[in-house]
């Protein structure tokens, strides 16, 4: 389930090994920070598979120590040169794509949609996310999404060139200071805009908004929804009609950040008492999030609701899903690893006879598309929204 250990085999690349490494650093048993060390630390998509599988019957936190290790290293100024590019772009242009901020609104040009950053009001703000804003091949999906919502009678607006990154990548790379700034300013903007819900198509954005934003202790006067949750509602309310049938055998890939990583993490605060000799009793009890509360059914329900579609499941799904490989900056900085991870998943999809992989995150889609292009595979990749549009 863990791409990193599967690919590199040394124990250090596994969740357990990463904890051993982090502990060694924290306890000062590992002074020299080698390039190999950084390589190990960042050749990990922070997909959370280790965390979910460990919590199959234990109470260990594995993912957050991985974050902490990165924050610790970043604080000392250790990271990959590629990361500094991303972070600079974030600081200067509010995006991680190394593109000018002024172009951020371009994807929506020509759309008749409210721009909340200009003081217009709407019920729902649609957060496209960096990739949808700047990836010409994918931004069409963002446009389709907005039109889809409008067709369904949703009072939706966007933030045009004033939309900014969710901070997810910064957080996962250990640049938590940078993350806090983006998270807080997003919350401020959305509160100020007075929207009732923030809807995003980017699972990475959704994951961080759901699981980490709340930890900042800022009041969030809005509900965070992933587009699949919102569309699922609309379909069930009959506001979206799917009449065109699509004859296809598809499988669904769970984006980590929509699934196991969208569950809020509750850091434990309290006192540890020793009872029965050494028994460590935490008061209050520590809340363990095992990843099975992620968004798993809505996207599947949407797919099932498309006439003619046959949904076949892969072996590794939901909280045990295999990562697409793009997460935590790996796509931008260590693409070879990202593509390898994707190819494993593609093989799995083909093994269950799927003609297409349907997913719900631009990063998964981008990475699968790249891997397929590289290998010349014939399998197709869709976003749930693309599927819906075809069926309307």
């Amino acid at each position, binding site marked *: 389930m863990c791409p990193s250990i599967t690919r590199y085999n040394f124990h250090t690349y596994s969740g357990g090994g990463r904890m051993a490494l982090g502990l060694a650093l924290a306890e000062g048993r590992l002074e020299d920070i080698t390039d190999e060390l950084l390589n190990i630390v960042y050749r990990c998509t922070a997909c959370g598979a280790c965390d979910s599988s460990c919590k199959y019957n234990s109470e260990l936190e594995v993912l957050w120590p991985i974050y902490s290790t990165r*924050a610790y290293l970043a604080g000392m100024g250790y990271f990959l040169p590629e990361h*500094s590019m991303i972070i600079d772009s974030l600081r200067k242009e509010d995006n991680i794509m190394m593109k000018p901020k002024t172009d951020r609104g371009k994807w929506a040009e020509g759309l008749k949609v409210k721009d909340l950053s200009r003081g217009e009001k709407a019920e729902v703000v649609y957060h496209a996310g960096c990739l949808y804003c700047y990836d010409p091949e994918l931004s069409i999906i963002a446009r389709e999404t907005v039109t889809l919502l409008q067709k369904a009678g949703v009072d939706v607006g966007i933030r045009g060139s004033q939309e900014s990154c969710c901070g997810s990548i910064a957080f996962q790379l250990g*640049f938590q*200071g940078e993350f*806090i*700034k983006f998270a807080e300013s997003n919350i401020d903007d959305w509160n100020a805009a007075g929207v009732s819900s923030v809807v995003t198509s980017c699972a990475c954005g959704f994951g961080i908004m759901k699981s980490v934003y709340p930890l900042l202790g800022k009041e969030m006067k809005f509900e965070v929804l992933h587009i699949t949750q919102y569309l699922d509602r609309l379909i069930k309310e009959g506001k979206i009609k799917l009449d065109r049938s699509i004859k296809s055998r598809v499988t669904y890939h769970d984006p980590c950040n929509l699934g196991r990583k969208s569950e809020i993490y509750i850091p434990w605060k309290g006192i540890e008492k020793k009872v029965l000799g050494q028994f460590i009793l935490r008061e209050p009890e520590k809340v363990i999030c095992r990843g099975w509360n992620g968004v798993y059914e809505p996207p599947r329900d949407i797919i099932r609701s498309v006439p003619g579609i046959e949904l076949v499941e892969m072996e590794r799904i939901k909280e045990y899903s295999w990562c697409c490989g793009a997460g935590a900056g790996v796509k931008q900085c260590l693409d070879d690893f990202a593509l390898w991870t994707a190819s494993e998943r593609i093989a799995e999809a083909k093994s269950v006879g799927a003609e297409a992989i349907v997913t719900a995150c631009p990063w998964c889609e981008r990475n699968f598309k790249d891997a397929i292009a590289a290998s010349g595979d014939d399998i197709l990749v869709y976003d749930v929204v693309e599927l819906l549009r075809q069926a309307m």
Partner: protein
Amino acid sequence: MQIVVCIKQVLDPEMPYSAFKIDADGKRAIPPQGTPPVISPYDENALEAALQVKDAHGATVIALSLGSKLARSILNKPLAAGVDELVLIEDPAAGDLDSFASASILAAAIRKIGGADVVFTGRQAADWDAGIAGCAIAEELKMPCITVARKVSVQNGMVRVERLLSDGFEVVESPLPCVITVDSDLGELRQVTMQGLISAKKKPVSAWKLSDLKLESPPPPRCELLELYIPKRKRVCEIISGENAEDTAVKLADRLFEESLL
């Protein structure tokens, strides 16, 4: 032409308030987790100035940094941006130096490098905000010094600089060699590219100790730091409100008038 740019590694001045902590006894700021140090912003402008000159006339640009612990992944950035060589003076003894001490060490390093036609620094560093080092380097090297530059060009052996004034700017000319301290108006350091990163890996980096500069210990500080503290901002914000926007606005205006602030 040889250009030296002095860059300083500082705690990220844009770190969130919550992250900024001070060790009162040690009289120093505590490096936070999750917020890496950065190259002082004005020093990045200085790098950009140097690279602009390089673009126009061709030059060898050397970035020079001094500190007790220097993070390679941060100081390599100039190389990726187009600087040709990186010289680090990393020495435990170079922990907290005052501006004049740093200047004399940097000057010594510049001599060892073989001098410079132009030395660029930021107008001030984002930690102590003093704005002394640049001028002091000039004095150490007996060079003319032009501060707070917003535009730099070199023509036939002279630099032409627009230096920022409170009510505009003045155009000055100086013979080479000289020291120029740079303002943010000059423009941000260019974006680092992938190719840049790759080429950076091949560029020379030398790390020296004070002893390599024939310095046993840094010069004593000219000023003494007695105290370093985070000011208790009296967080008493009087929130003005009324029946409606109109009323609220009027209340505010009157309040300010009472306090004779208008």
